[in-house]
């Protein structure tokens, strides 16, 4: 177990700058997820932490020691790969035992047949068998130890790859999109398994994924990466409720956040689709066009005369407990997704007109560059009071 520090990590591939000065502190025992769209540099960053890739600049510190010149095998990390990277010719037992054999046994002790002649081999092999048994028990692999990887299902292979990582009790675990080769149901299941494993081992986990659901459900903290930069680091609820960048707001959350064009008057009043809202900017930003983000669950049905906008239902997605309405707003080609509890959506059908409002304190305002702008709800709104939704 150890904390991990990234200091101004940069990486260049030819002319392209893949990582632009990453600064990140990962605490001991923390589950941190690096999340971002594909090509944002998150896997590269993980490989730099592992030492499989060399950074162009900056430093990696593990347990306060600079490891830039330390080989991956000496950094005391374990990694679970997207393709699992199991040794296809070795049984599950041998696959899990490889990290121990490579570290605990000498070259002579690893030779076939001859190894029993070297003193101490038997005791070491007993230790290894014990540790493999321990790891396979945690992961429920006891029945599969004699099988070859080809005889295992995707989820079982995944578990063997995790077993190979935990058997050595390393300082830090690295996961490189470990669930992306599994089907949807298994992915949900493995998600909880990995979370429970983290709770059990209490080690530092660094987990790379492009799936925001995985990031939201598993992590202590999320680090959102975009185009080689860390855009925001925070707990899942911080990142979801208080995104500091419009790209974060768009990336985290499913269905995607609704973004509306808006503008600001010189005294800081926010206009949405040309309509006045009760929102004020805390710092002036007059005359600029802005974007206003409202999450689908924050839109609610309202009386026609109180509604801030109305639209026609184009599509209804019924998920059982809740319903997603896809609307086309009146006057313009703005589309909106609304997330409603099942009961509230009863009676709404395609082609119906619905009227919407939103609690003002839920609106997220972003400036032209996509940076978040803090707002406050006016005490007495020019049109009417705030938070009209029940």
């Amino acid at each position, binding site marked *: 177990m150890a904390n991990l520090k990234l200091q101004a990590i940069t990486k260049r591939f030819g002319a392209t700058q893949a990582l632009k000065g990453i600064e990140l502190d990962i605490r001991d025992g923390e589950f941190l997820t690096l999340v971002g769209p594909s090509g944002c540099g998150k896997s590269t960053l993980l490989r730099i932490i592992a030492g*499989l890739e060399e950074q162009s600049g900056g430093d990696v510190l593990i347990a306060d020691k600079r490891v830039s010149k330390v080989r991956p*095998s000496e950094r005391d990390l374990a990694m679970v*790969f997207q393709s699992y990277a199991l040794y*296809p010719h070795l049984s599950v037992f041998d696959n899990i035992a490889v990290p121990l054999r*490579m570290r605990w046994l000498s*070259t002579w002790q690893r030779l076939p047949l001859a190894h029993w002649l070297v003193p101490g081999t038997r005791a070491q092999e007993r230790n290894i068998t014990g540790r493999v048994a321990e790891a396979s028990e945690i992961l429920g692999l006891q029945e599969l130890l004699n099988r070859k*990887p080809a005889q295992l299902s995707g989820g079982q292979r995944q578990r063997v790859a995790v077993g*190979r990582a935990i058997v050595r009790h390393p300082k830090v675990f690295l996961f490189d999109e470990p669930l992306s080769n599994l089907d949807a149901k298994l992915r949900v299941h493995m998600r909880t398994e990995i979370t429970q494993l983290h709770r059990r081992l209490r080690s530092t986990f660094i987990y790379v994924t492009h799936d925001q659901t995985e990031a939201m459900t598993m992590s202590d903290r999320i680090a959102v990466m975009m185009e080689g930069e860390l855009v925001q680091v925070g707990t899942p609820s911080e990142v979801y409720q208080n995104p500091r960048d419009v790209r974060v707001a768009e990336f985290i959350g499913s269905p995607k956040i609704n973004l509306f064009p808006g503008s600001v008057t010189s005294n800081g009043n926010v206009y949405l689709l040309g309509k006045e809202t009760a929102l004020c900017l805390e710092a002036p930003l007059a005359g600029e066009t802005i974007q206003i983000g409202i999450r689908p669950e924050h839109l609610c049905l309202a009386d026609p005369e109180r509604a801030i906008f109305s639209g026609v239902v184009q599509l209804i997605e019924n998920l059982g407990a809740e319903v997603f309405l896809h609307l086309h707003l009146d006057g313009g080609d703005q589309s909106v997704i609304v997330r409603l509890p099942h009961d509230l959506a009863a009676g709404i059908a395609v082609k119906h007109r619905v009227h919407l409002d939103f609690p003002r304190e839920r609106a997220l305002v972003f400036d032209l560059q996509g940076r978040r702008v803090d707002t406050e709800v006016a005490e007495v709104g020019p049109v009417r009071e705030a938070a009209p939704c029940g």
Partner: protein
Amino acid sequence: MGKNVVDRRHQGIALLLSAPAIILMLVILIAPIAVATVLSFTDYSLGNAGFEWVGGENYTRIFTHSTYEKMLVASLTYVLVVVPVSVLLGLGAALLINSLRHGGSIYKTIYFLPVMATLLAMAIAWEFALHPTIGLINDTLSDGCDSGWVYRLATGAWYGNDPSSSWYGQGCSQGFPLWLGDRDYAIRTICFIGIWQAFGFNMVLYLAGLTSVPRELHAAAEMDGVRSSWTRFWLITWPMLGPTTVFVVTITLIRSFQVFDTVEALTHGGPVKSTFVMMYAIYEKAIQHNLVGMGAAITVAFLVFVMLLTLAQRWLVERRVHYA
């Protein structure tokens, strides 16, 4: 009942449609082997009106007559030397080239040259180089005798060896070997040329095999604590190349059993039948001596050899190298 009629009609049509392919296969692939097998039990000669059945006599001769014993020895020597050496050299060259960042393609081309060049044409070059008196090789070797330090190094005099007891020292005093005319050297020379020609091909096959080794496996091994490239080779590269190795060994084995052109061009099976390999024996018996029955018997024996080896490969090895 109606269904049965339809089924039978379908069967008839199916047979009719596949008949051309089946007939072609029988005539072109099976018939020649069948004819050779039949002829191997006769004393047939081309041009004769008839033939006598001789039973297994041709086969008995293969395994008892000293000429054919020499044939088996020559063929097996060639195979047992050329296959392991050219496979290992091919693997080594492939690994080295694969580890290069630049210039790999130059090496690939150079090592592949002997494969592309016709062996018969290259045999002439070799014949010239290996000529006992005017050949490049013996010329160079005897030049070394006059240069003091080469002589001392090659004879081992530097390490206190007796120069006259070494191979090089004897060569200097008694003349260097007749590479193709000496019964001790001829088969080795033929083997050398065989290796020279085969290893480039094996290298290319291994290079193709190496591209299929997933890069993540190497990364995983690095994380697992593998430090030396030797361990990495045994943990990943060698097992992952298993299917390639089976293929390479099989191909090289069959090609080595079929060696003919170097022997025909350089030694004609001699001296004293020391390079009398199977293909050359078939050629000499069946074509030159017009003993078609005998030639057919060797052909069948050859076929059985290669078939057995290939089957053994499939049964013993192939099952262990395919992991998926």
